């Protein structure tokens, strides 16, 4: 399972990558494995404003719809609409072609408050060990 060190993470299993004042967002390798086959992704309209940890879309895997949570607040400036036709990219390439949205961050400090790769990995290990 991959935990790229250049990314930050949420406990709801989103990843975030900072590019200047913009933050690219997707779901983690762990999340896509837990979800199973992703069959549908719904992303927000461009220009939508969102709060940190507010929902920005949904992902449907077999038999379940799960909310997606924004790691930072801001405005949606890009959405990966390819996922509408190819939701399986979320499974195949969660950190690459399966990216979901780009947020123009309203408060750049929020990014620094997200989990580091080591912290997220430890969180996942803890979650798995509860089985």
């Amino acid at each position, binding site marked *: 399972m991959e935990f790229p060190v250049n990314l930050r993470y949420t406990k*709801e299993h989103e990843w975030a990558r900072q590019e200047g004042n913009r933050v690219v967002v997707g779901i983690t390798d762990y999340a896509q494995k*837990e*979800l*199973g*086959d992703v*069959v*549908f*992704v*719904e*992303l*927000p*309209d461009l220009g939508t404003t969102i709060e940190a*940890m507010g929902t920005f879309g*949904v992902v*449907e*895997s*077999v*038999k*379940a*719809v*799960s*909310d997606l*949570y924004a790691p930072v607040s801001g405005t949606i400036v890009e959405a990966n609409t390819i996922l*509408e036709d190819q939701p399986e990219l979320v499974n195949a390439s969660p950190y690459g072609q399966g990216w979901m949205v780009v947020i123009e961050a309203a408060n750049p400090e929020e990014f620094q408050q997200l989990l580091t790769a080591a912290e997220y990995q430890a969180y996942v290990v803890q*979650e*798995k060990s*509860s*089985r």
Partner: protein
Amino acid sequence: MQQPWRFVNTGNGTAAFNMALDEALLLVHEAGAALPTLRVYGWCQPTLSLGYAQNTRQEVDLAACQAQGIAVVRRPTGGRAVLHDQEVTYSVVMPLLADGPSTITEHYRRIGMALATALQSLGIPVCLARPQVRTAPARTLASPACFAALSRYELSAAGKKIVGSAQKRAQRTVLQHGSIPFWMDRQGLFQCLRMPAERRQVLVQEAYTTMGAVNEIAPTPVTLPALQDALRQGFSTTFGVELVEVPIAPEEWRLAQHLQATKYSTDTWNLDGTVVWRQRQPVEKV
């Protein structure tokens, strides 16, 4: 014993009300203001419910539904189409699991065990579908009907799927609801769905070997109260909790009424569907 759960029997409701109350229970629980809940209910009229991502205008024959007096509603949960008629519908609103992985599959397994306990107590020899690694068929190739495919930890009896369930997951709360039919109207279900006549014929025939219903399999006829009581007992036993009858709170009623009026009664939600469908493909008006 853990914190008790609430048991509510809300009787028959309209399609919009039933979905609105399930979502209201989820939202109020998510806000930390409600007990976990097992709700049982029925439908004022036959209703075709669709999964969140199903494209109503493309997949449903709305004229046929209207001619047969069948309501159409889109669910907040995933999965595919279900024709609700002579059945008990259950809905569970519960927190993420504290004593194990809180995955989709694990919730299906635990709730499946509770449903199995309930149905077995009525003499129905159900089993949980075993997990298997598989690739989901493309949405366009799969049957649009929920009962046509058995997913992990769903229930079958005599080789036929007899409970169809779907989930919605929020940050701290899971809603899972599902249909437990007494009888299965296979012809009626597929008449609601758009497809070439030949394909419909094939799917209806297949449905006699893949879709089941409680009173098609039970050794003695199961009544509505008996199944409702069995569900209450099954969840109590499986989750180790007491289920107490606590009414729906005023806050939950208000939120349900709001969602009923602004979401589940509207064409925007039920027919025009998700943002994705609206943006991507202008479809013919039916």
